[in-house]
């Protein structure tokens, strides 16, 4: 057992173990983080979708289809429109009938009365009960407990719906929602042969069975049926997350490689010290095998605790960070598959195998003659095996971390580019300093020589420090820019409520109410409801091709149409021209034709292109228009977004209502009640929770990148420590020599200062250049602005000072080496 602890007495081994622990920490953290994110993502996607698989149709699925799902958790959801009547008031609502399995994922948020706090519920209403949205209460002027008639059936309102887990956040349906139990559906009698319904058969199941069933179902779908799985849905919306995981993988790979470098340096130091011993053993007649077991045997077992502790901390961090918001930390551990557990354990060991073992094996190759050599060098040159191991380690690690060949290629390409670019950038800097040093003061000259004359150590150090500083700066700056951007877009007084259905005559009341409660109003958008009826004269049902059938739900609903003379700030024209800006010979101010600008995504889904003529049916009749531009919309902007924007005055003859948003200070819910009491027909949406969630995500992402940057910095410092440890003897000797030759302590200190300042300063310069180069296009893309200087650009300088400080701290021993040791060094 004591053999297990013996290596720990050696500083180089401690360093090696620390490097392995850091690598294990970073690797396991990123592996578990990805498992967790993917799990969460698919859970939240499944939640939004309603299940892992959704078979949507306009009538009940075929018995064979249901039979295929027999073994699984299935829920049937039926959506339809109906009218509620109460005291002569009619209200069109979106009704949903759910069975006892609903919802398969997520929870329903309910409240006991109009302004009460919400609570969660895991199943739908019991038979005989009815849940309604706030607006139903407001419009019909009723309260919880009232009995309402749905069709022929009287149901008692038992709760208010705040949010359904699968309720999409768009403004497709502005009708208030009600939920009832499907057991009551037949009794209502609303399901006649002509009723338009949308039936969703949602399934919860394992990934593998979903894949199999979706293949089976896909073979004989009816024309009215569509199939969507959580994978399809996740793939669509996971784009940004993929990007994020690419960067996380890259950072972790870099951390691992830096730790690998530290491991290699520390091992070299260990091997150098033990080479004499190995030679001695050989000269005593020990076989290679004996040398191996004596000198290497326990080495591997001794590093295991470091790997386990590092890995455990990494996993702990992720489950802690993820659990804290979630209250059940255990889910993280469950989210990781055995493969991920194995990877988290194996990846750091791979690092040891690649960076320590080949070097250690040099001990076995030590010839007996080594014992007769005066100096410690010679036979311990690097071998091809070491080179091969060092080169294949990143490939293998990247293979473990990434899950697609494309991503693997990207990560390796980036690593290779960095490996070539950075030395190419930094080495001339150091060489130039060396040349220029002839004119500098003595300490500067001596300091720079120490760096420029040891490229094998200086270059990896410089590269790793530069990388770490770059990543930290980029993480800091883009993180803070992103947050700032979000904050400006979503200032603390960002609209937290949306109002729909405002009529012209409501304006005085509405504005008075805003003023009274110090609410901040946003611009008003006119809204007309309409249904798309023809595309280029062809009825949409025929015009939209079969493969575009999934977009039918857009066609079956009222679309929200608006008009505007200027392009909303968060929108961008992809093709065509914005209203009123036409070709030269046309009048520049007045549109010559009826123009509409269409959102790009819906245009793609419906197969619309520039110049297409559209006809909408509105309450006043037909509205004809031509597509003159396609727009990209920023859905994150939390402003009202519209699929169809008409030129101004196009909607003048329609029934216009208004949409706006406003910010209301935190406070009493009665204020809203007051508004709804005065304007009962309006629709009021609270988007506060949505906002909070979005800001949370950004904050977490920038925290994660800062953590990665810090780990990177730490591993770079480990490389520095390993390099200093390896060169300690020589440094001590050089310092002692300077003292023997008459150098003052002050001079030696100054040399050290300059040496580390040069090293870290060069890295800081490199990091500044790279981060500026990287930030330029990044800023252009993210924030539509060029270079913006921020305090973060000073971070490399601060880090350079920290590195200098650490370097000086680590060199204390060499600094204090007495000159007397020169006379005795042969005995040490």
């Amino acid at each position: 057992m004591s053999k297990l602890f013996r290596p720990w007495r050696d500083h180089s081994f401690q360093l090696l173990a620390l490097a392995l622990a850091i690598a294990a920490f970073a690797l396991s953290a990123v592996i578990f983080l990805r498992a967790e994110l993917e799990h969460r993502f698919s859970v939240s996607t499944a939640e939004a979708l309603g299940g892992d698989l959704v078979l949507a149709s306009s009538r009940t699925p075929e018995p064979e289809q249901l039979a295929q799902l027999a073994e699984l958790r299935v829920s049937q959801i039926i959506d339809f429109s109906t009218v509620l009547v109460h005291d002569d008031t009619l209200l069109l609502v979106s009704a949903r009938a759910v069975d006892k399995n609903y919802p398969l994922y997520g929870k329903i948020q309910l409240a006991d009365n109009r302004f009460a706090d919400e609570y969660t519920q895991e199943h739908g209403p019991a038979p005989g009960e009815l849940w309604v949205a706030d607006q139903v209460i407001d419009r019909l002027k009723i309260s919880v407990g009232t009995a309402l008639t749905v069709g022929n059936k009287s149901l008692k309102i038992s709760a208010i719906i705040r949010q359904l887990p699968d309720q999409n956040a768009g403004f497709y349906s502005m009708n208030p929602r009600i939920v009832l139990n499907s057991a009551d559906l037949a009794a209502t009698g609303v399901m006649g042969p002509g009723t338009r319904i949308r039936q969703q058969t949602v399934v919860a199941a394992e990934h593998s069975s979903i894949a199999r069933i979706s293949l089976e179902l896909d073979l004989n779908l009816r024309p009215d049926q569509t199939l969507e799985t959580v994978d399809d849905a996740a793939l669509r919306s996971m784009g940004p997350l993929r990007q994020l995981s690419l960067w996380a993988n890259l950072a972790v790979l870099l951390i691992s490689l830096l730790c690998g470098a530290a491991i290699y340096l520390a091992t070299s130091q260990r091997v150098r010290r033990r080479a004499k011993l190995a030679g001695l053993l050989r000269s005593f007649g020990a076989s290679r095998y004996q040398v191996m077991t004596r000198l290497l045997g326990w080495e591997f077992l001794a590093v295991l605790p470091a790997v386990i502790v590092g890995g455990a901390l990494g996993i702990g961090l992720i489950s802690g960070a993820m659990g804290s918001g979630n209250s059940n930390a255990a889910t993280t551990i469950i989210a990781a598959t055995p493969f991920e557990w194995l990877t988290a354990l194996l990846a750091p060991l791979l690092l040891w195998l690649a960076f320590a073992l080949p070097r250690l094996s040099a001990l076995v190759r030590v010839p007996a003659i080594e014992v007769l050599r005066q100096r410690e060098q010679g036979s311990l040159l690097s071998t091809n095996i070491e080179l091969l191991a060092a080169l294949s380690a990143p490939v293998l690690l990247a293979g473990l971390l990434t899950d697609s060949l494309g991503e693997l290629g990207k990560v390796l390409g980036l690593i290779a580019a960095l490996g070539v670019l950075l030395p190419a950038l930094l080495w001339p800097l150091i060489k130039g300093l060396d040349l220029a040093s002839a004119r500098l003061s003595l300490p500067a000259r001596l300091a720079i020589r120490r760096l420029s004359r040891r490229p094998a150590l200086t270059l990896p150090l410089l590269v790793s420090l530069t990388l770490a500083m770059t990543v930290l700066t980029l993480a800091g700056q883009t993180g803070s820019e992103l947050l700032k951007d979000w904050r400006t877009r979503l200032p603390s007084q960002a609209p937290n409520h949306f109002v729909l259905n405002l009529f012209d005559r409501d304006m005085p009341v509405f504005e008075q109410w805003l003023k009274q409660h110090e609410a901040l109003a946003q611009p008003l958008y006119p809204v007309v409801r309409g249904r798309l009826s023809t595309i280029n004269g062809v009825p949409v049902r025929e015009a939209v091709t079969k493969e575009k059938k999934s977009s039918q739900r857009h066609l079956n609903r009222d679309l929200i149409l608006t008009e505007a003379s200027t392009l909303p700030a968060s929108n961008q024209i992809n093709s065509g021209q914005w209203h009123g800006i036409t070709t030269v010979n046309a009048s520049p101010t007045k549109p010559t034709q009826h123009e509409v600008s269409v959102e790009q995504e819906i245009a793609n889904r419906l197969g619309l292109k520039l110049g297409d003529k559209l006809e909408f049916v509105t309450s006043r009749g037909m509205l004809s228009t031509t597509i003159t531009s396609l727009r990209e919309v920023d859905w994150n902007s939390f402003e009202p977004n519209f699929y169809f924007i008409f030129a101004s005055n196009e909607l003048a003859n329609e029934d216009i209502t208004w949409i706006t948003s406003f910010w209301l200070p935190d406070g009493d819910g009665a204020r809203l009640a007051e508004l709804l009491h005065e304007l009962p027909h309006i629709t009021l949406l609270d988007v506060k929770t949505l906002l909070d969630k979005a800001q949370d995500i950004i904050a977490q992402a920038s925290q994660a990148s800062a953590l990665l940057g810090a780990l990177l910095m730490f591993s770079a410092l480990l490389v520095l420590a390993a390099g200093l440890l390896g060169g300690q003897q020589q440094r001590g000797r050089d310092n002692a020599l300077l003292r023997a030759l008459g150098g003052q302590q002050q001079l030696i200190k100054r040399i050290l200062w300059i040496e580390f300042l040069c090293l870290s300063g060069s890295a800081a310069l490199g990091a500044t250049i790279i981060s500026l180069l990287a930030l330029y296009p990044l800023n252009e893309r993210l924030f539509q602005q060029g270079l913006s200087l921020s305090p973060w650009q000073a971070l490399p300088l601060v880090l350079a000072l920290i590195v200098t400080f650490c370097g000086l701290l680590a060199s204390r021993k060499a600094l204090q080496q007495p000159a007397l040791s020169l006379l005795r060094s042969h005995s040490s």
Partner: protein
Amino acid sequence: MPQQATPLLEVSNIAKQVQGPEGELTLLEGIDFTLSRGESLAITGPSGSGKTTLLGLLAGLDTPTKGEIRLNSSAFSALSEDQRASQRGATCAFVFQEFHLVADMNVLENVMLPLELAGREKPAAIAKDWIERVGLSHRIRHFPATLSGGEQQRVALARAFAVQPRLLFADEPTGSLDHANGKRIIDLLFELNEHSGAALVLVTHDPQLASLCQHHLELHEGKIINKTFADKNLQDKSVIEKHIQKSSNT
């Protein structure tokens, strides 16, 4: 060469004690002698007798626990470490058994180093001159790792003499060299020393080498057991006795 009587190094009854694991340990005791400009002193004795310890004290790399060392008539051993270093830089030079060249510097830079530390004018020209004198002009840009032991020690000699020291310390300068190379180094050392007029303190366990010096101290377990100083130091009894012995023999 005329002998100068000015005392350069005065050692009065110094002792060195250290705290060992088993209490106080006396490494040196009762060392007492004077060395004048241009003179040479050999310190001999078996391994562990305290030669290196004494050299370290003389060069001010360490301080005695008792007694006093005066360099140029000022109390060297009473100075602070930095003051001793600057005195050393101005007066002394070293040749070590293990050469101790700076690995990151080429031959020229190594020889220039003490000149630069002392702030001398035109260090490169002086260094080149000395490198030529030790016969290594063709290797001026080479790094120590590419030189043989003998060549490295020649660079060390050039480095030592380049500052024109008044006092040169050599601790077993041939200890890491083979016989032929060792002999070349010794020849060179004495030749250069003769020209420079520096006083020389040479630690060796080679009696033949010791005999090349004017004066001789033999140590045993930290004490002088034999002190042979050339004629002029008449106050020294043992020398007088030897002298008398010698003259009576002839």
